[in-house]
């Protein structure tokens, strides 16, 4: 019989553990920005240069990390063990802290790690480093002071004060620029929404949270097989609502359209209620009637004329049975109602919110839309000319212990999002088979607002 020690990682593990630099030797934690079932995002600043050099020697390569101490970072910590609570045995150490086991990195975390390592674009949040330590993954990003959710909230509370046109235009153009970059690299984001669009303090858009992003060229299996549900409900394209198995990057453009509408009106344009997945039958995804309803009230009921492939989608029957009212297209009126006047902006919105994904604007086409060619010009700093100052990101300091593996309550309401009506499931991968690499059963309903 083999002795037990050969079944372990052996001397190698011992050697590595002796020389590994802790995340805390390089970064000083200021507080945390947000928490969810995936883990937590912390705000941190780099310590002095010497410790960084040490880290380099130990193989923690820093890609493009600035060495000035005091630079700010957002550290996303993935919890390694999301399913421990489901298991029968609860292990606790002598202090009552949960003992965490390795269970395998989730598909979502591994996508974000591998994609972010490759991507380098002004409008995508920049990954500085990845540290694997103590059964947790730490992804170190450049810190962004703002996000669109926060900016929209600022403009709608306590009283409504619209975002200036030039700012909207620059923001949307930069979003499209980042999306173009992703699509050119055969990656779609699949979770674009205001909360995931960061903006730096000098007005540069940084698309974040690539946890649902993936490559779409040559998929070895249908996209649907990989993830049954993608994109947060309010930003989910109609073809996804109709159960498309082989969707295209144009789903991201629909989401950008929704974001543009939200920047204009300061409210989600299609604020539907999500039909919950039947817990007893996780394999079947319900038809999102209410969400579809919200869309047709504004855009009109789609038909075979404006969407020829409509009857080819798996959920077409549900659509026919459950959507019986025939609404006329109403986007123009919606635009008037919210006080929109710019014709080109409306045209862009129309192009992005086109039902048929084949006709919908592509990212690179949208970039050169007439809206962006007329004055005011698109600015590199979207905040240029703005005579207001957005509040800084709220930081919570009641838990600065980044190394602790104490369970984060799965029902934890995300701190830092005082916008309770917003689906804040940016990382709500509760059901995303966090520890089995997204096998076949667990990956249903990743995008479910609470």
């Amino acid at each position: 019989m083999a002795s037990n020690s050969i079944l372990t990682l052996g001397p190698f593990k011992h050697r590595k553990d002796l020389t590994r630099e802790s995340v805390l030797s390089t970064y000083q934690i200021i507080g945390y920005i947000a928490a969810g079932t995936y883990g937590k995002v912390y705000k941190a600043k780099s310590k002095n240069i010497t410790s960084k050099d040490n880290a380099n020697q130990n193989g923690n390569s820093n890609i493009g990390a600035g060495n000035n101490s005091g630079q700010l970072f957002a550290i996303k910590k993935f919890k390694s063990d999301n399913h421990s609570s489901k298991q029968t045995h609860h292990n606790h150490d002598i202090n009552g802290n949960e003992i965490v086991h390795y269970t395998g990195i989730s598909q979502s975390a591994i996508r974000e790690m591998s994609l972010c390592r490759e991507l380098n674009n002004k409008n995508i949040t920049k990954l500085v480093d990845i540290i694997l330590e103590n059964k947790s993954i730490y992804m170190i990003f450049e810190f962004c002071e703002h996000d669109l959710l926060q900016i929209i909230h600022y403009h709608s509370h306590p009283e409504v004060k619209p975002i200036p046109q030039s700012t909207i235009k620059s923001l949307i153009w930069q979003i499209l620029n980042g999306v173009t970059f992703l699509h050119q690299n055969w990656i779609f984001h699949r979770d674009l929404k205001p909360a995931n669009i960061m903006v730096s303090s000098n007005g540069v858009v940084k698309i974040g949270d690539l946890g649902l992003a993936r490559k779409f060229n040559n998929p070895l299996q249908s996209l649907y097989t990989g993830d049954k549900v993608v994109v947060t409900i309010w930003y989910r394209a109609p073809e996804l609502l109709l159960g498309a198995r082989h969707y295209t990057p144009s789903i991201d453009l629909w989401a950008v359209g929704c974001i543009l509408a939200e920047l204009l009106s300061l409210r989600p344009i299609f604020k539907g209620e999500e039909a919950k997945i039947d817990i007893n039958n996780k394999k079947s995804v319900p038809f999102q009637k209410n969400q579809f309803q919200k869309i047709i009230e504004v855009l009109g009921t789609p038909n075979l004329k404006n969407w020829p492939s409509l009857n080819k989608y798996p959920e077409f029957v549900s659509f026919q049975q459950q959507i019986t009212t025939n609404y006329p297209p109403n986007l123009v009126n919606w635009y008037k109602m919210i006080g929109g006047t710019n014709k080109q902006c409306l045209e862009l919105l129309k192009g992005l919110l086109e039902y048929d994904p084949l006709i919908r604007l592509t990212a690179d086409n949208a970039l050169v839309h007439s809206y962006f060619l007329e004055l005011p010009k698109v600015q590199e700093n979207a905040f240029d000319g703005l005579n207001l100052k957005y509040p800084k990101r709220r930081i919570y300091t009641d838990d600065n212990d980044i190394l602790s593996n104490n369970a984060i309550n799965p029902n934890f309401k995300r701190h830092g999002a005082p916008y309770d009506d917003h689906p804040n499931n940016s990382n709500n991968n509760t059901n995303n088979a966090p520890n089995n690499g997204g096998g076949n059963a667990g990956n249903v309903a990743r995008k479910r607002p609470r």
Partner: protein
Amino acid sequence: MSADFWSSSQRNKWQLTRHSLLEARRKVLLLERKMIQNGLIKDYPNIHYDYNMRIYLHNLLIKLGRRLNIRQVALATAEIYLSRFLTRVSLKEINVYILVTTCLYVACKIEECPQHIRLILNEARNLWPEYIPHDLTKLAEFEFYLIEEMDSFLFLHHPYKSLIQIRDFLNENTSLYGLTLTDDELQNAWSLINDSYITDLHLLLPPHIIAVASIYITIVLKKNLSSIRVNNGSSSNNGHNNSSVFNRNTDSGAMHIDDLMILANPPGSGAAQNISSTAKTFQDMKLDEETIKINKFMNFLDHSHINLDEVVEALQDMINIYVLWNRYNEQSVKKALQIMLLNRQ
């Protein structure tokens, strides 16, 4: 970037030179010696990361992959993870069976065909019960160490895509190059790529170079084969060989080691002139169909701006596999690993 090899981490972070690879291996050996001196590991003089070992590891991976019905691209990704890892870690401080299993587990996730960790572990246990733990946390733990050792650079480009691209390009430009690849040739080239993962080439060269080399070998070999057939009747088969190229020994289009040997040592020419001299030799010969094809491919290469020195480099290593494969001794590696692992305290 993921669409573009030239700006990828594979090119910019993980492409080594012969020199830096040698340097890395030297470092591993130094480390090994130090650990032995300090009593952290025991020495097992029969454990080397040589071709014998590499063919053995390659076969382990393929065996496990077959059981799980894993796609070739995911296997290929696992192969590169394996070779990257072993540029930094000594065989004597790890359990290669867990390593192989972990590489495949991570590769499946990256290539978007994830396998449940329990399933992979069970299959690996079926194959190598004495070396694979029942406890899945061990595999999950190794995943962390594997990814860390690769500095979290996980995305890869493989020659398969280049091969298909070249095939399609030739198809679209027949008026220009007058050359297409048959399905058999494509399959042969594909199999040659499968086997190329035994070499260091994927750490050293861009994937398209390896694809071109695989096409070159395929076309030239077909030529050689038919002339050998004419001259000698059939040539002898080599014994058991797990190579994907030679698995097709029975079918008439399959390749033979002897042909590859001829290709490896073209009479009276230095290595660097391999390609041109082979082409020249053929020019002198009767202009049969295959010779014309080789000339056409050379013409395509001339126009392509592909680095021919690199292609030659790839050719030599790829052909060399089969020479070494002939001397491969599975039992000796298996035994050496067994002695080491079962003695580990």
